[in-house]
């Protein structure tokens, strides 16, 4: 197989890499996906297969392209783990680019040595991956059938995605409040935290009992998905008890946390 500059595969490869790099510069996630998928999932595998001079039947060909590309990606991540910067987008992309360049160069060298012993030097063309074993049809019915089927498939899948995500979001959304108290390191500070996961702004009554000092009660209002924190400094042994009234119903009507100060 001879790699020529005008080869479609090389053009697509270069264009995809250019698009991916531009997407990274512009921080455009959509374009990262569009250009990144062939860069990561297709081209490494295609290059590996050409280098190995393997020309299996289409199904095996595409399966090997997939696993070979995955293997290159896994290898890139493993190598980037060994670098000082670790596994980052930059390190993975650098290694992937290096591997791609090495594969292209290896293909070029291998194809030149193969072409010397071959009468004809076919090029790497994308069509070799699209060999079809069915006869083409010029009838309109299949075209219309495929168009209708495509519409049905798209509608069904979008419907399934919407239904699933909407129903799971509705049933799995939290509708409660979290109360916690954590001792801050070795200090005398205890942090009380109220996290409102009720889904709406909620008013609470926070009752705090301290050793010797006694009990205080305050009303707090916390917006949905927001956090209220209060630091308490305690320098006497005993118990700190914090009770939170309000929010979703509980078994005993309140939430309670307790710390024991030795």
């Amino acid at each position: 197989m001879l790699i020529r500059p005008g080869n479609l595969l090389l053009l697509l490869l270069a264009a995809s890499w250019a698009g991916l790099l531009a997407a990274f510069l512009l921080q455009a996630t959509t374009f990262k996906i569009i250009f990144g998928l062939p860069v990561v999932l297709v081209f490494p595998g295609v290059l590996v297969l050409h280098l190995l001079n393997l020309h299996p039947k289409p199904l095996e060909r595409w399966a090997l392209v997939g696993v070979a590309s995955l293997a290159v990606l896994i290898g890139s991540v493993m190598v980037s783990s060994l670098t000082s910067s670790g596994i980052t987008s930059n390190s993975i992309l650098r290694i992937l680019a290096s591997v791609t360049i090495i594969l292209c160069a290896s293909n070029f060298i291998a194809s030149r040595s193969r072409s010397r012993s071959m009468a004809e030097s076919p090029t790497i063309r994308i069509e070799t991956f699209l060999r079809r074993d069915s006869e083409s049809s010029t009838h309109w019915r299949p075209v219309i059938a495929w168009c209708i089927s495509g519409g049905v498939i798209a509608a069904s899948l979008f419907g399934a995605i919407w239904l699933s995500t909407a129903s799971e979001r509705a049933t799995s959304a939290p509708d409660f409040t979290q109360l916690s108290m954590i001792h801050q390191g070795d200090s005398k500070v205890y942090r009380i935290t109220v996290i409102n996961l009720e889904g709406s702004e909620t008013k609470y009554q926070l009752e705090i009992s301290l050793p010797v000092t006694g009990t205080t009660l305050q009303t707090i209002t916390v917006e949905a998905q927001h956090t209220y924190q209060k630091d308490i400094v305690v320098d006497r042994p005993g118990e700190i008890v914090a009770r939170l009234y309000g929010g979703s119903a509980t078994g005993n009507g309140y939430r309670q946390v307790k710390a024991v100060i030795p």
Partner: protein
Amino acid sequence: MLSKFPRTRANTTNSATPLESQSRPVSAHSGVTQPPAIFLPVAFGASAIAVLLIATAYAAARDQAGWAPYLYWTGELLLFATATIVVLVARKSATTLASAVLVFNLAQYLVKVFYSPLRLKFPDELQHEQSALGILATRHLFPPNYSLPISPLYPGLEAAAVGFENVLGLSLHVCELLVAGLAHTLLAAGALVLFRLVIKRGDLAALGALVYCFGSYQAFYNSMFIYQALALPFAVLLFVQVVAILQGERQVGRLVTAMSLSACLVITHHVTALFASIVLVIITIFAAFRPAYRASTKWVAATALASIVFLVAWVGSVARETLSYLSEPFQEFLSSFNSAGSNLAAPVTGQPFIDRVFTYSSIAVPLALLSFLTIVSWRRKQIGIATLAGSATALQLAVVAIRFAASNGQELAGRAQNFVSLYTAIGLAMCLGLVASLLQRNAPAIIIGILSVLFVGGITSGWPPEYERLPGSYRIAAFESAIDSHAVATSEWARNNLSPGNRFASDFGNLAVIGTLGNQFPVNSPYSIIFYRNSFDPRDAAVVQRDDIQFLLVDTRLTEQYPPPDSYSYFIDDSLAGRHQTPVAPGALRKFRDIGGITCLFDDGTVQIYGLRGSPYADSTR
């Protein structure tokens, strides 16, 4: 590969035996060689509608609609019917056959995704997600994983997901779904390629691939974000390379591909790598003793040797814990055969009657078919086929024995079935070809009947268990249904507010989540009694100190619900397993509030976290 296996012939007027004259179509229409042009688009559309029906059933189940199961089974049967009819009708078209198998697999995978589209929900997946989160946090491989310590040592799966996350900019969850979906589809493609190489008939190969895809672990378990799911396509395609070499394609490219796949396999999953090495050794021995394949022996031996060397090198240098990790369940498995017969009810514990019928049928039908093929081919002196069918029968019997005799037989048998099915599916496909040649006119109906038993039985004997087959309301100490907003939010709080690796004790469901998403250490030992007594007891203190338990995660729903109907347990190693007359007494959980010295760090109204350091549990002298 099977030189005596019947090939499709134009004329069937010779005196060949029925097994050898399987040119009779399996399809319903003997004279049709190409389906109508609209056939495939209609089939694809029907598959998409089937997925929509199942997704609708899931949504209805979340709303507790009583008709959800009926809709679910309608969707599943439509999916089955579409794939099976396409394979039976379009037997001459390789593209159509491949499309039918791949579209079925893709639809099967989407069904799993729609079960829980917003986050991973299966406990096994959470263990690997924890490894991926650790890699993202540390930016290096081999982060700690308290729930499944072996997982980071086989980083193939998580490296792929993290790679996608870094390059594509998608969320980790979407990348995990992408990796799992690719693995699932590549496995089906690889299986079809392998079966084509071995069976040499496209329609039977496609039937064999469908039989494999109907297996109990294919629908959900091999669709999960777990390391075996990614390792299996590496293994299957490795076998494809070796079979191709055996059949004369002795190219350096095939050899290098095989060795590369071995290397990928070794860094992805231990058991699959070991299984592949064993299979390669068997193939090497087979090739050495068969004159037709002797020329390829050195090539296959090189592949086998490379596989073993890679495995030994990885286990010896990076994943030394593999030996202890695998030896423990292996010893448990061996010892459980000493109490054989104690688990006769295990495979179908808690299943409704109709489910049990299909579960047992999905075990009995393949055995019967393979035995039938063995006998018929032996009588007709087709030794190659008889050997294949006989060995497949023996393997299937071994899996059945594991299922019934081992204490955790259902899980072990399911995992073994994953590998064994690659072999038995070939035998079953050939048997279906035999059935077609013997029954002729009635063949399609019989074949559809057999496949439907395998398909439904694969669902009833597979994952999730019957009570979780459709997503529903929270169930304490269960698998997927125990992972709700309380469990997830509590674990996220623990991850953000506690140091990693604190030793937690809890019920089975919450323990799975706190040990993964919470990045804490889940203690898996017998401590259930702590949660059952109504007051402090020094014996419970001994348990806490023995296991160095630092925190208790107490879910008040232990007092409201009975344990799940398959395990009858609230905890791993539950002292009252199978004997719960009532849910846990409220006083048994309330005591933790009242015992002096116990801190309560967290309360969301349903779940509390108690710290035991400084309490009588941690210090017996108090």
